[in-house]
């Protein structure tokens, strides 16, 4: 959870929803770890759900990343971080699509 102190308490609450980069990464790594475990346990749908959750987290972060103070403090180029996250997203999306297409193929087999 972010610890931004804002002039407005409500605004701070909203800020907490849009996580900082480190929290995003920590959550994403947790999700990916869970995804690997479920995929290894022959549960592709559950694995895909973890990956899809990570993609949504990345999308939310990228939408609000201009407000992440950590980027200014680190300091990291916003464009570089955005590109890096997009690559991660693309990899994860490819996995989700692959799982979906395999599931479709399997369900098509009588």
């Amino acid at each position, binding site marked *: 959870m972010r610890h931004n102190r804002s002039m407005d308490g409500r605004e701070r609450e909203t800020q907490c929803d849009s996580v900082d980069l480190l929290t995003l990464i920590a959550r994403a790594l947790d999700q990916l770890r869970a995804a690997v475990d479920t*995929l*290894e346990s022959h*549960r592709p749908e559950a694995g895909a759900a973890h990956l899809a959750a990570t993609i949504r987290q990345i999308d939310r972060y990228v939408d609000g990343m201009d407000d992440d103070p950590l980027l200014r*403090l680190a300091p990291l180029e916003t464009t570089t971080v955005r590109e890096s996250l997009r690559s991660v997203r693309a990899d994860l999306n490819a996995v989700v699509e692959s799982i979906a297409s395999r599931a479709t193929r399997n369900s098509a087999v009588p």
Partner: protein
Amino acid sequence: MPGDSRAAPSWALPPDAENEEILARLASATGPERAALEEQVVARNVGLVKSIALRFTYSGEPLDDLIQAGYIGLLNAMANFNLARNTKFSTYASHLVQGEIRHYIRDRHTTIRIPQWVQSMNRRIKEAEEAFFQDAGHPPTLEELARSLDLTPEQLAAVLRGRDAMTYVSIDRERRASDPNPTPPTLEEVLHDRAGDGMPHDLRLRIAAAIERLATLQQEVVHGLFYHGKSQSELGEDLGISQRQVSRIKEKALDELREALFLVSDTVEDRRRTNGASHEA
């Protein structure tokens, strides 16, 4: 003369004997003599390199480039061949030439960046494989390779599953489709065919690449926070939080980084143990 086997002239020696004779002299040669002997070995094995390179033209890479890559394998074979061991030079050199050409094609065709830890693991496995090949004269089995790497066969299988399987598999599939004389399956192929953990190798690599990229990004953040030259109090002021909270954030970042590194480098079993321990903590 036909039937006259009393004193075979040097030109009649089989290629391996010729190679090995030169290699024996090479072992103690220095300077210009060494360079000349090395050239001789290369010249005598041009045909071998070309014939192997021809098998890989399906890759779409120019034959000359494949041959150049093959020469690197030949030079490595020349540098590492041990005459005291029971292996023919041509057998050993073929193995290394083929490996180098495969490696070249993989590099050229890689669509997904192979993570650093996989590359490092590849090198370690390749070295162990080559050392075994030299000693035994044949490629190692899973058990033999595991023993030489000080791993259990299960651990090695887990490691191999995470290797650069995606590019390997895709290249090999192309080769099988277009090559009228495909070579027998390799150790990796056999292992991958056996692998039954429910996760296709291409997906595993995609996820590994994503994890590695996130871990790198995390490292950059941590590096920026720790080495940007600001004290924790200054960072706290900038963020509008206490110095203690900055310290906690940094600790958390380091913990996450540590876990991420474990995640990408450990075997499945080790990872599960690590996760269990961190949950308990």
